[in-house]
């Protein structure tokens, strides 16, 4: 089956539309996630979905109440974020240790619960997702998420940038410290909820962190970083979907590798510009 034949299928068009909606939204989110040093933190939140999903099944089995996993994923990721923030402030543990404990702990707890509930096969889907499991309803949700992330980040760009650069300067201009982190945590949690089914925890982390990291490495101005991250957020997921269809390879890993290729190209371009290549 050649590429033009593949595009005649709805699932392929939906997959591409999904990549084009979620890629730039995640990249925009990633600009501030990486500048604030929250890459590992966002990774932990994405993986907390293991426990979030398992909790929905557990509640259903024990009480008979049907709970939408989106609700438990959202609530659990916020609880985990609050717990991590509390531990970082109140204990001598370093931020990276707290995140590692929360990350591995929530994946392990989720995997055990899911196995106990007899749904072990779900684990693969939670890690890698299935971008072909899209329909018009999912696309509408993703478009809503892209609008939410884009609207909030673009409208709060100045406050976020100043608070990221220097909490002290931001405070002196009446911008409360910590506010930006709360906004980012809420947006990451919303992104996890909406895109977990399509992207999985692993791919979601890659889409948030890699385009922004590549742009940060290559640029010395904020505007250039913003533009390049968005470009990566469009090109890498789209080319990952096309490559996976053309080469008959799993889509999630193809998108991650396309992102890494984008990062390598940005690195080479930067090295060429400063005369190291």
């Amino acid at each position, binding site marked *: 089956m050649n590429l033009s034949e593949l595009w005649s299928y709805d699932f392929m068009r939906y997959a591409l539309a999904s990549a084009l909606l979620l890629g730039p939204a995640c990249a925009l989110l990633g600009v501030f996630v990486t*500048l604030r040093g929250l890459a590992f933190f966002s990774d932990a939140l994405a993986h907390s979905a293991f426990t979030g999903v398992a909790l929905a099944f557990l509640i259903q089995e024990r009480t008979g109440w049907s709970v939408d996993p989106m609700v438990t994923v959202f609530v659990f990721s916020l609880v985990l974020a609050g717990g991590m923030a509390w531990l970082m402030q109140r204990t001598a543990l370093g931020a990276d240790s707290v995140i590692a404990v929360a990350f591995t702990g929530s994946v392990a707890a989720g995997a055990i619960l899911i196995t106990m509930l007899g749904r072990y096969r779900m684990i693969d889907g939670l890690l890698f997702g299935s971008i072909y499991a899209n329909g018009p309803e999912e696309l509408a949700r993703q478009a809503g998420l892209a609008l939410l992330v884009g609207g909030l980040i*673009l409208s709060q*760009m*100045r406050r976020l*940038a*100043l608070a990221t*650069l*220097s909490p*002290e*300067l931001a*405070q*002196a*201009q009446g911008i409360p410290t910590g506010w930006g982190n709360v906004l980012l945590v809420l947006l990451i949690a919303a992104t996890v909820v909406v895109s977990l089914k399509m992207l999985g925890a692993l791919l979601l982390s890659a889409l948030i962190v890699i385009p922004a990291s590549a*742009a*940060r490495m290559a*640029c*010395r*101005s*904020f*505007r*250039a*970083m*913003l533009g390049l991250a968005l470009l990566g957020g469009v090109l890498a997921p789209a080319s990952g979907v096309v490559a996976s269809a053309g080469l008959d390879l799993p889509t999630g890993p193809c998108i991650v590798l396309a992102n890494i290729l984008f990062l390598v190209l940005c690195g080479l371009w930067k090295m060429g510009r400063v005369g190291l290549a």
Partner: protein
Amino acid sequence: MISASCLPAPSVFSCRAPLLRMENLGVRFGPQWALRGVDLHIWPGDLLAFIGPNGAGKTTLLRAILGLVPPAEGRIVQHRPDLRIGYVPQRLSLDAAFPLTVEEFLALNLRDSSAWFGGVPGKQRRAVREALETLQAAHLARKQLGLLSGGQFQRVLIAAALLRDPEMLLLDEPSASIDRRGTEELQTFLQDLHQTLGLTIVFVSHDLHLVHHLADRVGCLNQSFCGVGPPQEILSEPFLAAAYGAALAPRRFGFPLARS
């Protein structure tokens, strides 16, 4: 407390209302007092320095003036509620790789930059250029912020504060991380700003040379208020001993102290 803390305003200011009045100001963090008993007026056109050892409450005093820490006792009264105050923090611990040019950083500090996306539109660009030219730093516009030298960065921070058109400029340790030559340049352009723009300048510093040569008045702190007055009076043994301790003060500073 030494009686000079209640010195009257210098005669040049006495016919005008103070910009700020601190009345028995005290700031506490938990059970610990960071600062207590500050009675002070800041006058239009003042060039006031605060000295004192580490932990004396100098930065806390600036933060209280900015309204960032609330008084635990006493109060700060502004002559006008809309007093515009510019703030230059100590050298920020910036990530050198943070992708932000000087021009973008300055635009970030403009009042009307709500739609800031890193870009600097025409009208704002003019304001940014003017602020940089005032500080003879126009050549830095396209440089990456994290790669500036200490002196260059200090100028950019002052330019950023000036963009908000302040009546009073607060500087926290402006000469920290600047070499001697840079400090002399800083002194010159702060004097220029004071004279040409009529700006009220309040700064805290450990650099008594800078304080000696730049300030018109000096306030002396050591968690409580030791005194305020002209430099030749405050930079003398009784006040320095009150702030830094009797054993350390006379030996610590490598310039001839004025004696009262």
